[in-house]
């Protein structure tokens, strides 16, 4: 049966068909939907959200060592977090087959950087596969598992946004039940103590040698002969873009297995074509290796290494062709920057923070990163997941040391706190900086689309579980001043902030209220009730001061003609944040 699947859905199906029994991930665009689509196979596969990518990979490693087929998925920056276990596990090798997906995001749609994780395969010396459509995404999970078991190594399956999120036809297959391999105690294989690791180091090189022959033979790397004037070496989605432009007017060497590269095949291909192009997205990963072999080719001098690739870019770069476009005056087009949702529980905190003078707000990865934007302009920095708390610590220590009275406030979400923020808070408690850490607990992982996390009381596969109590956890870590507030109550937020800023010790404020877009669990309904309603502006009372507009709620609209504010009924949820900032009490709750 054929189905239209996204690359992510196809990988999930591949995991199922490959007989994998353990899968773990931390949500992150564009990889999130992989685990979400594995979760329904409850009978066959244990699928878990781990608190971070390192933990996800390490748990999959454990499953592999005892003999199960295992899987982990993450976005490109997640691999940085998981790099530590990855490099060591590359030495030990596996037992049950194991695949790691890196979903890279060329074009930076919702990440903090653009990194080409093909470099990781070369760096960690592990085999890599790159699918170029959904069918291949599914099939390559199965290929990767086989390669993993055959060559005793973890395998990297590298995807990119356009493979993850575009749908194409996939032929579904059956699951292969393989059971679990036996586990035999073998510290010489699995314990990377220096004496053993030095031996492993040699085995890694031997393995690379074997993989070098494999890459020449595997049908994953194949020729497509057409006219020989132009020859194209390509992989992943870049191959599809290349075919879009050149069709049958060029010959191709399509590479599905890209570390190690099939140098003999490449040489043979180069010898037969007149002009050789290497077409790849982002970095010249293949091009550099090909050029290092002394083979002449054209690549990044014509195709930029910044941003997502498409057919237009190739057409322009290599053929100097441009399509005729419709010209129209677009000078008054207004941007559509993402914004905190109407009724977002983070708004109250950011509104209060934006009024504070002489503070630096270190932000983090999640919806609350949007606190950077107009009109709140509350956040100063965003580095990487979990960095807000430690950056706040360092900033505060340096400020205090230099006699600067500026204060550091770190904001971090619940899921991000569990990810790596906890460790940083421990650093604060231990090294005692008087930072204020605000944990924005919206009872879910908001940005990636509402995944469960250790604080929500449910697992990925819908089981009820222990719910971690953040205040207790913070106290246990060593923070004495911990306060929980309702972020929709501005007075409460303000008081808590003032108290915290007056302290000479570290403190934590937890803003606890569910994300408005979240489907409420039984636990949420018990705790928060059905709070949603609707607010309205009395237009006779409104003086058009725009104070409410400054909260940044997209349901509020300043009407230039009447010089008053209006509330969009469809979006407003009656959170009453605007009600509290209106100086003339023109806004009222009108419905439950």
């Amino acid at each position, binding site marked *: 049966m054929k189905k239209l699947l996204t690359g992510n859905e196809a990988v999930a199906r591949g995991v199922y068909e490959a007989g994998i029994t353990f899968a773990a991930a931390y949500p992150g665009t564009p990889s999130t939907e992989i685990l979400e689509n594995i979760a329904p196979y409850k009978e066959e596969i244990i699928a878990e959200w781990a608190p971070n990518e390192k933990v996800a990979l390490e748990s999959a490693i454990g499953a592999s060592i005892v003999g199960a087929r295992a899987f982990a998925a993450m976005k490109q920056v997640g691999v940085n977090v998981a790099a530590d276990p990855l490099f060591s596990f590359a030495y030990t090798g596996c037992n049950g087959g194991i695949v790691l997906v890196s979903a890279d995001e060329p074009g930076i749609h919702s990440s903090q950087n653009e990194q080409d994780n093909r470099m990781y395969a070369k760096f960690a010396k592990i085999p890599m596969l790159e699918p170029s459509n959904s069918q291949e995404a599914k099939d390559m999970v199965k290929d990767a598992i086989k390669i993993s078991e055959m060559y005793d190594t973890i395998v990297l399956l590298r995807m990119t946004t356009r493979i993850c999120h575009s749908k*194409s036809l996939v032929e579904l297959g059956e699951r292969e039940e393989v059971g679990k391999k036996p586990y035999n105690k073998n510290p010489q294989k699995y314990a990377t103590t220096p004496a053993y690791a030095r031996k492993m180091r040699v085995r890694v090189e031997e393995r690379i040698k074997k993989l070098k022959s494999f890459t020449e033979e595997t049908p994953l790397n194949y020729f497509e002969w057409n006219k020989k004037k132009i020859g194209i070496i390509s992989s992943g989605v870049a191959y599809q*873009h290349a075919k879009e432009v050149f069709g049958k007017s060029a010959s191709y060497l399509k590479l599905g297995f890209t570390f190690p590269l099939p140098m003999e095949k490449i040489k043979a291909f180069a010898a037969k074509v007149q002009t050789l192009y290497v077409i790849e997205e982002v970095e010249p990963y293949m091009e550099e290796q090909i050029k290092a072999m002394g083979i002449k080719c054209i690549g990044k001098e014509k195709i930029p290494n910044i941003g997502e690739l*498409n057919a237009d870019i190739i057409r322009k770069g290599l053929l100097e062709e441009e399509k005729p*476009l419709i010209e129209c005056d677009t000078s008054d087009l207004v*941007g559509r920057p993402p*914004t905190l949702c109407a009724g977002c529980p983070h708004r109250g905190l950011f509104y209060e923070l934006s009024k504070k003078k002489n503070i630096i707000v270190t932000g983090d990865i999640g919806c609350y990163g949007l606190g950077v934007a107009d009109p709140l302009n509350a956040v100063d920095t965003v580095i990487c997941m979990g960095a807000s708390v430690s950056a706040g610590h360092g900033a505060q220590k340096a400020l205090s040391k230099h006699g600067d009275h500026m204060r550091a406030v770190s904001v971090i979400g619940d899921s991000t706190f569990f990810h790596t923020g906890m460790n940083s808070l421990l650093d604060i408690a231990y090294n005692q900086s008087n930072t204020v850490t605000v944990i924005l607990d919206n009872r879910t992982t908001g940005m990636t689309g509402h995944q469960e996390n250790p604080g929500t009381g449910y697992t990925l596969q819908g089981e009820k579980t222990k719910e971690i109590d953040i205040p207790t956890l913070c106290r246990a870590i060593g923070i004495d001043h911990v306060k929980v507030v309702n972020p929709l109550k501005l007075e409460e937020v303000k008081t808590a902030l003032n108290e915290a800023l007056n302290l000479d010790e570290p403190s934590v404020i937890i803003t606890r209220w569910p994300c408005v877009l979240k489907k409420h669990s039984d636990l949420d309904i018990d705790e928060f009730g059905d709070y949603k309603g609707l607010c309205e502006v009395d237009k006779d009372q409104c003086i058009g001061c725009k104070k409410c507009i400054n909260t940044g709620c997209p349901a509020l609209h300043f009407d230039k003609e009447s010089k008053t504010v209006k509330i969009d009924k469809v979006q407003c949820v009656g959170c009453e944040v605007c009600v509290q900032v209106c100086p003339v009490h023109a806004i009222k709750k009108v419905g439950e």
Partner: protein
Amino acid sequence: MTEVKNILLVGVGGQGTILASKILSTGLMEAGYDVKMSEIHGMSQRGGSVTTQVRFGEEVYSPIIGKGEADILVSFEVMEALRWLDHLKPNGKMVINDYKIPSVPILTGKKNYPKGVIDRIKEKVDTTVLNAAKIAEELGNVRTMNIVLLGSLVKAMGLEGIDWEEIIQKTVKEKFVHMNIKALKAGMERL
């Protein structure tokens, strides 16, 4: 048919472009075409601009539609039509939903919603304007606006031969099937 056709649906997060293109792609797949569909969005749930692209034909390679390549552009929102206009072929068709969603700089009064967008576009390309929100509301639910637009797309692309009712039955929740079929028909008629 060997030539690949390109359909571009553009709108704002939450307008249902994704469901519409899901129904569309499923229909095309069942009609025997090779289909690729791509969603392009950043943090779109938070009010950003969203596009979904559907390419179909005998064999489709790239999953994305470049500038000057779309055969038809269905814009779920007025300003988005202008933003994506350069993706339309010079002889392509434009369908605009006469529905405005101001973005944050407009809401706060810093910028103005561009004026005369529809007229500007009409001057350049073959344009159909419909008020899908009103049509959907008359049918009983504004939320089927996306399916009304899908209906007009089906008509404009000459895809009436596909059994869309069956596809809707398969894709949407049972209690919404009837309403969605009505919406689809209305969209086909009003074009």
